[in-house]
């Protein structure tokens, strides 16, 4: 049941993110990318399966049993991904602001659609 909720959560985040990604306004795209990065981070994290109460911090260092700990590898991947996604948001935000200043519109193509 928990797995199902987790899976649906990733789905809802993805759907909202993709919807915003396809919108014409730069701010919508930036918000969409944030939501998508949550979804992708959860997705990668989920590849190590869901464990409760088993953080990958060693307690007994003499006899290490890998079965006692959650998979650390996806966590290591996601940790750097979180920081990098901040960098990406920052870069995109600045490009967005510069584009708004230069083109006079916040449309992703730098000009309004001909309706």
């Amino acid at each position, binding site marked *: 049941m*928990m797995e199902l909720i987790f899976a649906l*959560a990733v789905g*809802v*985040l993805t759907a909202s993110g993709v919807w915003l990604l396809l919108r014409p*306004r730069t701010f919508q795209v930036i918000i969409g990318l944030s939501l998508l990065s949550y979804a992708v981070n959860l997705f990668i*994290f989920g590849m190590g399966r869901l464990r409760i109460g088993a953080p990958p911090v060693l307690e007994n260092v003499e006899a290490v049993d890998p079965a006692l700990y959650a998979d650390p*590898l996806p966590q*290591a991947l996601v940790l750097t991904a979180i920081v990098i996604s901040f*960098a990406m948001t920052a870069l995109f935000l600045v490009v967005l602001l*510069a584009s708004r200043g230069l083109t006079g519109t916040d449309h992703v193509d730098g000009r309004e659609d001909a309706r």
Partner: protein
Amino acid sequence: MSSGLPLLAIVALPFIGSLVATFLRQDARNGAAFLAGAVALCGAILTAFQYPAVGRGGVLHATLSWIPTLGLDFSLRMDGFTWLFSMLVTGIGFLVALYARYYMSPADPVPRFFAFLLAFMGAMLGIVLSGNLIQLVFFWELTSLFSFLLIGYWHHNASARDGARMALTVTATGGLCLLVGVLLLGHIVGSYDLDKVLASGDLVRDSSLYLPTLILVLLGALTKSAQFPFHFWLPHAMAAPTPVSAYLHSATMVKAGVFLLTLLWPVLSGTEAWFYIVVTAGLSTLLLGAYSAIFQQDLKGLLAYSTISHLGLITLLLGLGSPLAAVAAIFHTMNHATFKASLFMAAGIIDHETSTRDIRRLSGLFRFMPITATLAMVAAAAMAGVPLLNGFLSKEMFFAEAAESHVDSLLDDSLPYFAMLASAFSVAYSLRFIHGVFFGPPPTDLPRTPHEPPHWMRFPIELLVLVCLLVGILPAMTIKPFLAAAVRAVLGPETPYYSLAIWHGFNEPLLMSVIALAGGIILYWLLQGYLAKGIEGPPLMRRLKGQRIFERVLVEVSWRWARSLERVFGTQRLQPQLRLLVAFSVVAALWPLYRHGIEVGSRPDLAFDPAFLLLWIVGGLCAIGAAHQAKFHRLAAMVLVGGAGLVTCITFVWFSAPDLAITQLLVEIVTTVLILLGLRWLPKRIETASDDLSMGIRARMRRARDLMLAVAAGAGMSLIVYAMLTRPLPDTVSRYFVENAYAEGGGRNIVNVILVDFRGFDTFGEIVVLAVVAVTVFSLLRRFRPAPESVEAPEQQQVQDAYDKAQPDRSVGDTLADYLTIPSIIMQWLFPVIGIVAVYLFLRGHDLPGGGFAAGVTMSIALILQYMAGGTRWLEARLRVLPIRWTGLGLLCAAFTGLGAMVFGYPFLTSYFQYLDLPVIGKVPAASALLFDLGVFAVVVGATVLVLIALAHQSLRVPRAARPPAPVATPDLTKENA
């Protein structure tokens, strides 16, 4: 190897000389010419000394191992034939260098010219002496490249640029065909070694790949040697300086094609396909070139078409496939090089002295430059095939061969007549060259009086004409042994008997010669009237211009086709691109589902917890709400995204990922600050009633399609995640990390050990990315022009300032300064607390959740809070944060930690750890990974703070709008001051 060294030197010297020439001063005309002449002379002398080894049929080899693991060697070989060609390249190279010293104007960048010329010489020698076919093609393309640079030497001249581009396009395309042909040849033979290829002629001719190989190799050779229908580039290459025309476009580079045909003659010739393709190309080029040459008005144009025609003659001879014809081809290659190079040089002198090459304007020059005129006349007579000159001998051989029967066909039967016709044409254009330029009334409209050139400029012509005469009169005493060596190298046991005597008695070839000579003279006499009219281009074919076809093809392919392809398949708009990308991903993910179906795994479910369900109901609503609000209510959308982020963060805690939760929470905070700072410069979108109504049916359709796409993507992700989560976890590399984290990395927090130790190199890459992004953001913001609407102070600040202005006891800015006083004091007091938390997170990171990333973000929060509390000016008056230095020092720290391992002989970023026993504190882990983590910490602090401060600083600048809406009359400040 002792015998190989001279060969290597012959090829390497010109390249070294070229490199040296590039470093000479712009005006070092003498130095560069001396260098080029000396290099060419050295090459010639070195080549000459190899004669005893190759003269008796020996083959010299030199091998330099290049990539031994791939079996690739740089290999050179020299036999009698290639010896003769090297002599030609270096000998004429020397004469051209001498000539160019006087020809080039001191105003031009002469060292560059000689650098190109020497590099070309090296490339040409590379072709001639290559012992490996791939290597040969490499040098082949190099000659095309240097020919391009030399034709375009006067690059301010449009015709030079066009000619250079055309020559490069044609010959380099041919070179690519040649490469494929050579690859096929190597595939058939099983080796690219020239000796092996030359020995497997039967194997190649019997192969099913023979025809494609032949066609591709011929495409390379025929384009290079300017054979019909690829001949059109050569006349346009005449825009090059004349020494280049003499060297590349008559004596050497255009000979590369016939050189290759001769070299591969034992392998490829002797079949019907060879006969028909090569003979047809050669014959049509011979006739067409000679015919067009008669009607050229440009002196160099005449010589260029004559070159095309003579190359056609050589190609034709090679195509006949008989050994005697091959002898004639080799002999004529040498003869043509001597007389044509001297004619080009003479044309260059005439151009130099009279400033024109137009035959219509030139006449009667004999009286001004008798010596040059005499020399040119002798060379032109050799070109026409007059007895007692070298051209006569090879032409006789050609006539004899044309009269012979080879492959019984109409083409073969008609050859003698075509041969006589072409020969008559060549007599006619030679006569035109002599008569039109040197005889007749003195020229009238020349800019200056012509006179003889300096002696050393004429010397190369004198030498070459002397060779023409000596070979023509005393062939047995001069050229015979060298020619014999060359012929034996190509033909081997097939070497036929041939005689180089001038007089063979009254026979068929002599009769043909007499007819051709007489016919040529009569033809020229008949054409006098037509030629006097001075019409451009040959009659009948004036409208057929290879150049125009070439350019049309070029425009068609590289412009029209490219444009229409882009129009059909491309879009400059982001939305369709993203839509396609998402749709493609959905389809790509659905495909395996459709093929194999999907089933739920067997892993036991976790016990249901209603709190988690509630949590994600909130999280899902936040996400959907953010998606709904992002267009008009940005702040709300941002808050809702933050909500979804928090729920994600709690999920990490729930499922045993404390490190992720900490990092996510902290990054959430800085992202919010970042977007808030950004929103200040993003003008509001105001929702109007018309927005909803005016949405047309197309927009509605588009939204419906996007919604479907989004739902499909979300549902697909859910499906994949659920299918994965219900399967048991297979054994992965993670086991290794868990088991060795403490034993080898000295840390209990496995995630942190992976980041700073096992996968330290990846982390190093990531912090570099972070630093790069931060610096990019910083530099983008340095020239930032905000939207005109957001230049003014924010609304709230305007209200505050207006209030201050209205009160007599307040001055503008007072309210702003007092705004949120208590929270800002709390924030100031929090600084040391948060700082200590950062240090704590950092120190415990190796054993407990925390680490460099989390600590770095915490520290940057501490700093940015001070900016928010006191304002930028207040803070920077008290504390100078230097984020670029933090970033740089952090990168250096991480890199040096990694390099430190190399000092002790370990690979980059190997970590070392030890437990230190400190008094009072007790046992403390001291891993070198901690230093690396310190670097990570500093980079994260620096990058995050740099981005945030750069944005915050925008409020301090006097912002200038990107595009002033309308020109506003500015008060004249200078006048006021005065």
